[in-house]
């Protein structure tokens, strides 16, 4: 009981979306309708192609309002509905404008929404904005660009691969999340090339990274390399993982211990420091 969204009907809500065309725009009312739409989608309601297309067209009007919450709800709706219509591209211009605008609070979310509606053919049109965004000073923008680029490799790997220099630069960003995202994307771009991956891991092992998440990623990459490599326990990769058992972050210790315990042919000698790492963690949880 007392769920105001429990009995909303999809047809009614989609009809209500017609008020998006009215001027002046009422941000609160329009925001409420978008919330209902997102709630319905979240509950598993199916929106037809025509309905989605109509909603997209109506939403373009909402960009005329500068209301922050309304804009954020537009981005969210765009992402939720991106795959439901072939006409999502109509908001491209509005999103590109926001992505390069001065309102930082819009930029990261605009990047993510834009990439959700972008495919191989349209990506080339925004390529230079993406490269700039990847190395942007604002951390949320950089992260948004890096993670969106990762998603885009599913359909446009060749295009994203051209941005490898920008991605590499972001690996030394001082945000712990940007580092993690950059390293993850860089590995994804390089992983078919074993030598390049090895060099990359060695470089970051030596220089160290600030981010405990990036360390976890490095441990996984190193484990993967070790799996395919027979140099065994003398490998600097193994020594690196083992050294992570002494990292100051629990997250990293745990990752290193898991990696060692899950290695094929793990002997008692290797297991002991891992297990004491685990005991520490089990005690801590």
């Amino acid at each position, binding site marked *: 009981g*007392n*769920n*105001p*969204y429990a009995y909303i009907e999809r047809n009614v809500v989609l009809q209500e979306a017609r008020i998006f065309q009215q001027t002046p725009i009422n941000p*609160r009312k329009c*925001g*409420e309708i*978008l*919330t209902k739409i*997102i*709630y319905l989608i*979240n*509950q*598993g309601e199916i929106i037809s192609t025509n309905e989605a297309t109509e909603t997209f067209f109506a939403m373009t009007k909402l960009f005329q309002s500068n209301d922050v*919450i309304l804009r*954020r*709800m537009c981005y*969210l709706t765009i*992402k939720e509905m991106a795959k439901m219509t072939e006409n999502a591209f109509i908001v491209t211009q509005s999103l590109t404008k926001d992505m390069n605008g001065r309102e930082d*609070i819009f930029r*990261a*979310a605009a990047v*993510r929404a834009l990439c959700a509606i972008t495919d191989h053919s349209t990506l080339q049109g925004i390529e230079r904005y993406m490269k700039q965004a990847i190395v942007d000073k604002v951390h*949320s923008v950089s*992260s*948004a660009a890096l*993670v*969106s680029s*990762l*998603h885009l490799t599913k359909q446009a790997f060749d295009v994203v691969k051209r941005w490898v220099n920008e991605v590499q630069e972001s690996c030394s960003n001082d945000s712990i*999340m940007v580092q*993690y*995202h950059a390293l*993850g994307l860089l*590995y*994804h771009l390089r*992983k078919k090339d074993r030598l390049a991956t090895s060099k990359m891991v060695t470089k970051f092992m030596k220089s160290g990274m600030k981010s405990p*998440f990036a360390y*976890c*990623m490095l441990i*996984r990459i190193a*484990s*993967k390399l*070790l*799996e395919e490599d027979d140099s065994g326990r003398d490998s600097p990769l193994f020594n690196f993982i083992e050294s992570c058992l002494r990292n100051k972050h*629990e*997250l990293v210790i*745990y*990752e290193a211990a*898991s*990696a060692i*315990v*899950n*290695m*094929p042919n*793990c002997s008692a000698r290797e297991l002991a420091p891992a297990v004491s790492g*685990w005991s520490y*963690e*089990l005690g801590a*949880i």
Partner: protein
Amino acid sequence: VKLGINMDGVLEASLYTIKAILILDNDGERLVAKYYDDTYPTLREQKLFEKNVFNKTHKSDSEIALLEGQTVVYKGNVDLFFYVIGSSQENELMLMSVLTCLYDSVNLLLRKNVEKRILLRHIDSVFLIVDEIVDGGVIMQVDASQVLDQIVMRGEDIPLTEQTITQVLQSAKDQIKWSLLK
């Protein structure tokens, strides 16, 4: 907690670590659900999973469960249950950091009134919070204060009648304290 030899080989080195985020009420009904891969591709399968997760966790005191080949970390409060789901091989502390961020962000948003009625009143901001924390299965942010910085709420104070007596007294006490310190 998973010990033992991993028969599937080494965990893939990927940014895609989160399979789903759920917020259920105390009947196990879905309030928010984001699934980031196709482990449960249909609504029916999702609902079955949610039922299973809820049944296994809502009376339990622990924070972690393993079911259907997934690692589930969770936290309940009053009439809400928060879940973060990863693969069986996923780093549990990583999943916990996402859960903590989710819970703390909602806690901050709702000014410690983490209950269904209040959450539904601000469900738009809750959708935005989830969106800030995980994007397509990738962890974006684990710091609740940074998440809240990106979420703007309409200037809407919780009306006096909605605060509990305790809260009113506490805030009055705080105000008196501050005015004495000045």
